[in-house]
């Protein structure tokens, strides 16, 4: 924990963390200093002049808060007349060449320029000369559309590409009111984190081609979630909305701050993985190839389970710990072999050491924690012996070619408990639709052994059951979330003294707590 210091804002004493600049230090206690170019992940640039504050210790009358470290006893002025005037004047300056096309701008509603205009300016434009014409709707590549006219030249995007991705595709060219952000000719944005410039941009200059014109942001409901795109488990905000007479649909994923896991950013692949939550879903229970009421299919499953002498279960490495526990208990009760074989989820060499991981499954560490066998040999021999394979959302077509898979499953009936309508699901004799990760609550352990829990994000019109519930219907003895958590507590020592709702929002680092347990 950092040291605390005391300083004065507008004459009121506040206690803040030491070692931060004024914007972050004072912002942490709820006093906002307006800023456009400063971003905690990108450092202070000091070009926008929006964060100018007064400090009463003999300094010049105006200092940029982003470049000023918070010091004990500092007397910060935010509401003095000259500060108000400078904020108003900076806003007027920013808006001189701004097209104010908010009606067509996707940023409207989450735009810093709009917010600050309402807070500090609220004046008519005094411009009586034509505005500078710049490029609009420029394709920067990687799904980023740029509008130079809306840009306030804060340089966040430029710094992101230089400091974070170290690719440096963007630069600011020309000077004064002609300054603009651009790519080098023939060198579009080509890094795997380019989508973050859209989030970074405080105004509507950077927009996402994917999200463009889909929704106005004020319609979107925001739910916190965990990205299941790879083993990193980046924290995301699920922006979803149920339009009138339509289903609840996810429109975008945005990164959510978690210093322990992903910081401020996510990769583009994870950003676009929301599409899989909307499309290609298995929505109806199937018997053979025909859609049937889910109760009929469940009854047929129960009959199959009774008939089969040997049963094999296979589990997706994307399942939450709770689901794994429920399925494990089911396997024990049926005397079946439970496998977590999912080599197909690993793409060797894809990871980059930053956020993207080789392993494209969110909870492989969970399989290990619960002691579930993941070897190919054990899985194949179990399948060959079994008359019935119950597949809990494991997309086996990732691990096998379709012909090999058919060969392997010959003589074995398959019940697919699946969230998506994959080719593997089509091969199954019985299919039961289940919720995907934005539609259930659970917890996952990421590649760094950090356990993160997440809540149910949205409810579809046809709200599908969770794998836990299906496992219980098929005979798993762990009927309630409490029982499932108790089983997890047995397997994971760090959870022993925790209530389910006491898992910290930043995630529980199992390495730390395990180390702590060992020393104790």
């Amino acid at each position, binding site marked *: 924990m950092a040291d605390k210091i005391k300083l004065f804002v507008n004459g009121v004493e506040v206690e803040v963390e030491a070692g931060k600049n004024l914007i972050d230090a004072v912002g942490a206690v709820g006093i906002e200093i307006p800023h456009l170019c400063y971003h905690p992940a990108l450092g202070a640039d000091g070009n926008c002049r929006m964060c100018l504050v007064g400090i009463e210790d003999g300094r010049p009358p105006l200092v940029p808060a982003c470049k000023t470290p918070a010091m004990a006893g500092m007397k910060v002025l935010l509401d003095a007349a000259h500060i108000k005037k400078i904020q108003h004047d900076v806003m007027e300056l920013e808006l001189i060449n701004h097209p104010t*096309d*908010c*009606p*067509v701008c996707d940023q*409207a509603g989450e735009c810093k320029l709009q917010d600050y205009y309402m807070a500090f300016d609220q004046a008519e434009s005094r411009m009586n000369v034509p505005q500078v014409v710049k490029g*609009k*709707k420029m394709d920067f590549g990687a799904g980023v559309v740029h509008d130079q006219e809306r840009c306030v030249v804060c340089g966040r995007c430029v710094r992101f590409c230089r400091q974070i991705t170290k690719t440096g595709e963007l630069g600011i060219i020309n000077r004064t009111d002609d300054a603009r952000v651009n790519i080098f000719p023939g060198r579009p944005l080509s890094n795997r984190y380019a989508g973050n410039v859209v989030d970074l941009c405080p105004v509507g200059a950077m927009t996402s081609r994917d999200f*463009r*014109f*889909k929704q*106005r942001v*004020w*319609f979107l409901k925001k739910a916190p979630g965990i990205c299941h795109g790879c083993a990193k488990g980046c924290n995301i905000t699920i922006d979803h909305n149920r*339009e*009138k*007479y339509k289903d609840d649909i996810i429109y975008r994923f945005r990164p959510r701050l978690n210093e322990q896991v992903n910081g401020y950013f996510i990769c583009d692949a994870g950003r676009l993985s929301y599409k899989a939550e909307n499309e290609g879903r298995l929505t109806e229970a199937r018997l053979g190839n025909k859609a049937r009421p889910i109760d009929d299919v469940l009854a047929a499953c129960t009959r199959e389970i009774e008939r089969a002498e040997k049963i094999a279960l296979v589990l997706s490495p994307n399942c939450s710990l709770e689901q794994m526990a429920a399925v494990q208990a089911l396997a024990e009760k049926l005397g079946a072999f439970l496998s977590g074989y999912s080599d197909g989820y690993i793409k060797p060499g894809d990871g980059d050491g930053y956020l993207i991981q080789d392993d494209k499954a969110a909870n492989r560490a969970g399989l290990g924690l619960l002691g579930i066998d993941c070897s190919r040999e054990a899985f194949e021999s179990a399948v060959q012996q079994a008359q019935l394979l119950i597949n809990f959302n494991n997309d086996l077509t990732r691990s096998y070619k379709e012909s090999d898979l058919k060969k392997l499953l010959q003589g074995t009936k398959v019940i697919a408990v699946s969230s998506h309508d994959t080719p593997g699901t089509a091969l199954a004799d019985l299919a039961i639709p289940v919720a995907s990760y934005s539609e259930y609550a659970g917890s996952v352990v990421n590649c760094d052994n950090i356990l993160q829990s997440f809540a149910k994000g949205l409810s579809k019109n046809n709200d599908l059951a969770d794998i836990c519930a299906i496992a219980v219907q098929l005979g798993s003895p762990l009927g309630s979330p409490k029982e499932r958590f108790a089983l997890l507590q047995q397997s994971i020592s760090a959870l022993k003294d925790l209530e389910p709702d006491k898992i910290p929002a930043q995630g529980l680092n199992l390495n730390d707590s395990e180390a702590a347990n060992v020393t104790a």
Partner: protein
Amino acid sequence: MGAQVKTIERKGSSLQERLYLPEIFKGMATTFGHLWRNLLDNRKLYVRHYPEVQPEIPVRWRGRHRLTTHEDQTVKCVACFMCQTNCPANCIMIEAGERLDGKAEKMPVKFNIDLLECIYCGYCVEACPVDAIRMDTGIFSVTDNNRESFVLGLEELLTTPGAFSEEEYKKGGA
């Protein structure tokens, strides 16, 4: 500071009023006067002979909606969703798309107004930043025999002309 108190005389306590019948007869005389006057000359009825004689629609009357167009008949709407956001009845359903003719970046691909849900409050007109939606068609009676036909589409909204000239509309306070 005391509130101003105005004492109102309570009526109905005199004997004649308490007998009730005389007052009833007085009331009946009044109503009969109306009946007799109207029987003798039914031109004195305060009615409009509606389907034949149409009411005069003032400029500020909020009738059925329409979408205005630029001079070259292209849609003015930029699909900013302000009307949909402002609509208290949630009767406007817009789908936006890319606009390629250079007039703006964005335009509505679908623009549906469910007249069965519309409460004709005119908030959409007030919210519109580009004067694209108006309620100046002068259409006050929308009838049909199925629900679907009450959902106005983009085509219908665009082709309905306004009932007033631009000058009249502007003078009406819009």
